């Protein structure tokens, strides 16, 4: 057979079923189940031939159809007309699906912001000038989760952290920090972390600093919220400082 096969992509089994119903121009309340089932299965076969992956939802619907078809072949029960039409099992979800497809269509025809209509925008410099803490926040939960995911991804990328942790002890680092402070007189918090290679080294430095502050060898100042923290040494050069560190 030498013909071009153009296979439509359907959103799901209901989408495909609806397509078949329209194509055959049949009444949704009186679906010729045998025909529709056959065509539905043909479509799945075609997908197989084309090596397309068939979602389990399609297979589930196939079995539902076959089941209904077999039920329809059984002679009507003798109890009379109480029996429900087995096709209701697909008619009902199809009708419901159609309602929402309809709504989706209506939504897409509305005057959509930034597609059909446009609003005013505040230039960023204006926004920056007026921002204060009274404002409510323009953030959503997804952004929060996304931020967290980003962090966790970064973290899992650096597995070697654990090994380098032994390289530095807090005490060693404290001595390094003291040496720098002795030389510089005072420094900004940020400067202390400039040359740290790994996160773990950074943490050790940080712990060392905390320790030095705790035992009173370093004092910290922050003039305003925005300014960097300033570190000032509170020891002289006679070695007693190192003793205090060793005893700590």
């Amino acid at each position, binding site marked *: 057979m030498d013909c071009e096969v153009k296979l439509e992509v359907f959103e799901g089994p*209901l989408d495909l079923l609806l397509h078949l119903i*329209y194509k055959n121009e049949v009444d*949704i309340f009186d679906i010729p189940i045998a025909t529709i089932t056959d065509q539905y299965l043909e479509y799945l076969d075609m997908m197989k031939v084309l090596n397309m992956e068939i979602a389990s939802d399609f297979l589930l619907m196939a079995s539902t159809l076959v089941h209904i078809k077999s039920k329809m072949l059984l002679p009507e029960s003798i109890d009379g007309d109480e029996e429900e039409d087995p096709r209701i099992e697909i008619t009902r979800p199809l009708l*419901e699906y*159609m309602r929402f*497809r309809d709504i989706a269509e209506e939504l897409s025809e509305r005057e959509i912001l930034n597609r059909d209509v446009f*609003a*005013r925008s*505040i230039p960023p410099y204006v926004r920056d000038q007026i921002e204060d803490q009274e404002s409510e926040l323009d953030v959503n939960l997804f952004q929060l989760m996304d931020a967290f995911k980003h962090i966790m991804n970064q973290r899992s990328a650096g597995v070697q952290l654990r090994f380098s942790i032994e390289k530095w002890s807090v005490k060693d680092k404290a001595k390094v920090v003291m040496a720098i402070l002795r030389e510089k007189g005072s420094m900004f918090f940020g400067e202390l972390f400039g040359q740290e290679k790994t996160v773990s080294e950074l943490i050790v430095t940080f712990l060392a600093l905390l320790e030095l502050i705790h035992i009173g060898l370093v004092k910290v100042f922050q003039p305003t919220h925005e300014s960097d923290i300033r570190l000032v040494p509170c020891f002289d050069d006679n070695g007693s400082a190192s003793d205090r560190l060793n005893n700590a």
Partner: protein
Amino acid sequence: MPDELKSIIEAMLFTSDRPLNAREIRTWLPDKTLSDVSMALKDIENEYNSMRRSFVLKEVAQGYQFRTQSRYAPYILRMLKTSPARLSRAALETLAIISYKQPILRQEIERLRGVDVGGILKTLLEKGLIRIVGRKALPGRPLIYGTTKKFLEVFDLKDLESLPRLKEITGLSPDSEETIKNSMMPVLS
């Protein structure tokens, strides 16, 4: 329009990048009543409608916002050098279901659409059109979804009540057939 209140409100609306509602506006104009503000808003809305300018005052997401008329979209898009991000049909269908059935669980959406909607939910969350409302007291404590204010803004809706009416399916009785048939979509290509 020589009315000072109207001018003040117009200036606010013109400077804002989001819809403003009467109650908010009143908090910035404490010596005015809420009905003063509401009336001024209605007046401005009517004025712009009759002026036939390139933009009008629209009531969206329970507020008012100046928006351009849709026929200028091609020029504006050219200026902005963007093509609008379009939602896929699958995303629109999912959004339609959530907007009508909220608060709703993922599994209910999947039952209605007949397919997995995980990826689509993520996209809609990312775009800020839907949000997580809470968790249901069920095994696994599944998440409950609903639409956002941004959904109303994007789709030019005053509120959830102004969504297009959902056609009832009351069963498969003969008289309901007609209404449902009328709501059918044109034949798919």
